[in-house]
């Protein structure tokens, strides 16, 4: 039972990280109609920036804040230099161009930081564990990820639903011609949205960095997961992204931890431990296929598209 609670928390943490990535993707997709495969590169860049700045300043929090700002700037630069020219193009063009950006960023990181990868240490004051329930110790850092990500989700909700800029973002997603006809500087809005998405991806990357190693290509596998999330949630829907992200996080984590035992009931113990990881990796893709077969536009399709 305690193990189950712990795994649910782990799943929640993965889900919320996925949400940070997926929120940027789904915003960019919903508003600019742009498929951005290079979103995972921004996740990677965020992690590298954080590791570098944390080493420079000697403080995790300062390093993280600087990294967030830097990733925001990189994102906005990418939008101005490359993405801006892709709006209104075919989705195939987006896939190809941003695939090229992945290659570029991977090599750039290799050039700047070297092929070895980096480590980002958990700050000392978070490197403890918290007693949640009698007998249930949970790492404080993972708890902090959950708290930060929830706060960001709430912040995002408030920005998108309660502020003027959020109103423009939503209006842009519904009918961009009308918004620009009404005199809104749509170019600037797009750059801002892309930068915001980049910063969210960078935040996910830098928070994940102390748990995994910071390495080239770290953004690619999680990018695919984030795409699964926005497909399940319905492209363009932030609410859908949040629900789908938590769903995917929970299924993936719980599948990984309990499937081997479950399979052992039917199979030999050796066979079960061999195929369980493969099956649990497949689970979410199967979930996506099922969702799309039943609802071809995701769980929460955005109306008017």
């Amino acid at each position, binding site marked *: 039972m305690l193990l189950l609670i712990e795994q649910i928390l782990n799943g929640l943490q993965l889900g919320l990280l996925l949400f940070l990535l997926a929120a940027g993707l789904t915003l960019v997709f919903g508003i600019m109609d742009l498929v951005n495969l290079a979103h995972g590169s921004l996740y990677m860049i965020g992690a590298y920036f954080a590791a570098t700045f944390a080493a420079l300043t000697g403080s995790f929090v300062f390093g993280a804040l600087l990294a967030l700002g830097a990733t925001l700037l990189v994102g906005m630069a990418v939008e101005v230099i490359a993405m801006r020219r892709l709006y209104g193009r075919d989705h195939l063009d987006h896939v190809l161009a941003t*695939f090229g950006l992945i290659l570029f960023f991977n090599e750039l990181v290799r050039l700047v930081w070297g092929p070895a990868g980096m480590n980002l240490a958990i700050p000392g004051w978070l490197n403890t564990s918290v007693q949640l329930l009698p007998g249930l110790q949970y790492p404080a850092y993972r708890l902090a990820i959950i708290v930060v990500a929830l706060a960001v989700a709430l912040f995002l909700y408030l920005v998108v639903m309660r502020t003027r800029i959020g109103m423009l973002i939503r209006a842009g997603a519904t009918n961009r011609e009308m918004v620009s006809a009404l005199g809104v500087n749509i170019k600037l809005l797009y750059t801002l949205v892309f930068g915001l998405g980049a910063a969210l991806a960078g935040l996910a990357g830098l928070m994940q960095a102390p748990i995994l190693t910071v390495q080239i290509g770290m953004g690619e596998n999680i990018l695919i997961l984030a795409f699964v999330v926005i497909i399940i949630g319905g492209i363009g829907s932030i609410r859908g992204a949040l629900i789908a992200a938590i769903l995917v996080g929970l299924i993936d984590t719980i599948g990984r931890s309990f499937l081997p035992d479950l399979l052992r009931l039917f199979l030999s113990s050796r066979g079960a431990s061999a195929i369980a990881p493969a099956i649990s990796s497949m689970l979410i893709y199967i979930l996506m296929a099922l969702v799309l077969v039943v609802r071809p536009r995701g769980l929460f399709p955005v109306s008017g598209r």
Partner: protein
Amino acid sequence: MSFTVRNFAVAGLVAMLALLPLYVFAGGNPFLLTLFTRILILAIAATSLNLIMGYGGMVSFGHAAFIGTGGYAVGILAQEGIASGFVQWPVAIAVSALIALVIGALSLRTRGVYFIMITLGLAQVLYYFASGLDRYGGDDGLTIYKRSEFFRGLNLSSKTTFYYVCFVVLLLVIALVWRLVNSRFGLVIQGSRSNDRRMQALGFPTVRYRLVCFVIAGAICGLAGALLANHTEFISPAMMHWTRSGDLIVMVVLGGLGALFGPLIGAVALLVFEESLPILIKQIGTPLIGSAAAQASEYWQIVLGPLLLLIVLFARGGIDGLLKGVRRG
């Protein structure tokens, strides 16, 4: 066939490919034969992707799954002691077609980006399935100790013979695609790409047509996978990693989407570029920046990425489109 620059270029390319083994035999670099065998095989896969993507408008981001399926069919049969190519290759094609049927039936319910992503997702399922095949190497892959066996006189272990087998298969595949797209079937597929609703109103069950097209492409790609497994004598889940699917899309678009010889041009261009760029950087850079050029040549992908971006932005018809733009007279 009109005498355009494009047609001359394509004819020249095919003639060059046909004569390449002679050049190697006459003292050329033998590595060229290995490289171009790989290029021919990938061109077969890219041609099959072009059938659904260029003519059918179905952007599949999971096409490498069929390369993997074909490869694993050969690898698994070889591991179990069935080395005959007369069994291995048909099985590779049939299993790939079957999997394409399942993937196609599921993903053709969706359109646009959802289609791109569901094909990617289902290909990932196969990728993880292959990683879980513990008996056949799991993540590490499986070495194939014996290439497919046919009759006496067709020995695939000979590099030249294998090259010509791939070359003939490629030409047959291109001929098949040419016949297909100019048939009634192909016209329905292309009509459905331009305006699906109108084709349906004309009474064509377009989803069924598209599904058949998807299955044919999957089967051809499975054959390419069988060839690739024979070429590398090794199979692993990495064959169907999603970036491999991305590479195939790059080849098709680089060569020219919806152009018959586009995928071949794209495969040659991309792989030759990949192989020669590091050397090029080294040769051109050494007089200028000295030994730093050798270091810089390791980072050639930093050039490839932006180049892709530029092609998307400024050369939408790919290389084929560029050649077509230059007409004689």
